[in-house]
């Protein structure tokens, strides 16, 4: 059986792995995707579009078909 490294070395690597954080470039890439998606979602039902579809019923109540 292949001899493994001492436990203290493996533990050190585990601790380093647990502390590791994304690079600045990775965060920027994520921001690009998530922030873009933000914009997409805000464009799904623009306020003007919703307002234009609001109908006033004879009873005086307002409704829309969204």
């Amino acid at each position, binding site marked *: 059986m292949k001899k493994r490294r001492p436990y203290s070395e493996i533990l050190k690597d*585990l601790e380093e792995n647990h502390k590791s954080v994304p690079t600045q470039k990775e965060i920027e890439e994520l921001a690009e995707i998530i922030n873009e998606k933000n914009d997409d979602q805000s464009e799904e039902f623009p306020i003007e579009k919703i307002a234009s579809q609001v109908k006033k019923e004879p009873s005086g109540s307002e409704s829309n078909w969204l």
Partner: protein
Amino acid sequence: MNRIGFRPFLNKITGGEELKIVIDSNALIASGDDLHPNYGEITSFIRDLDQRANLTLYTTVTTKAEYLDYQRRRFLTEGLLSLSSLPEISLASNVKAKLSTIKGRKNTREKNEIKRSQGESDDIDSSYFYFRDSEIKEIKKVFRARDVQNEAGWLKICDIFLSRKLMAEEALIDELCTYLSPYKEEQAHIFNNKVDWKNATKISAKSGMGFSDSMILNMVLATKIDYILTLDYDLVYASAVSALSKTVIIPDKRIKQFKQALKKL
């Protein structure tokens, strides 16, 4: 009595001998999370053992899966919670709201767990520090695009917060542990009985222990390995009932805690 504390066990080691120990999931998890209350104790114990003896830590692939799943929840929780502190990220309002609700739930659970552990003088269960699997699924849903084909957001989150860390974690655990398998030729000398999975059901049925623990105990019973390293009362109890030929190694303070409960076993 088939249980021994860390200190007396270390004192038994004369030095340089071959030492085979099976580690169960809660002990392995404790050794892999510095927020776990037993982290310091268990990592020091394994380090001391490793320095004194030629130690082989055995475990099962089921235990590895439990360990990696715990780390998956941890890495994703840490990553998702860090999003709000990153100035580059501007989260959509529905994502922000979902994260805030789930963070609130987690914090409440955490507070209750701290209260419980103080009231019962018991260790904190560190899994309470992380999101539940169902909560991760809830968050995943709000990150998903309405168009299922465009999953870039969630996949990027996994890519930067989870992927590399989980792969590295697996490689290190694979290096640390040897997985027990009755089908591996190089392990044939360790096994003295056939592994009959029906026995795992019998062990679980006899003491009411969980299946993942009964599977590891059943595997150990089929081997010549004498020792099981655990933190779990259930495993200590089941070993006292179903595996008297094996010795359970537990933290010294737990020997005292379990003494009363296991008095007549």
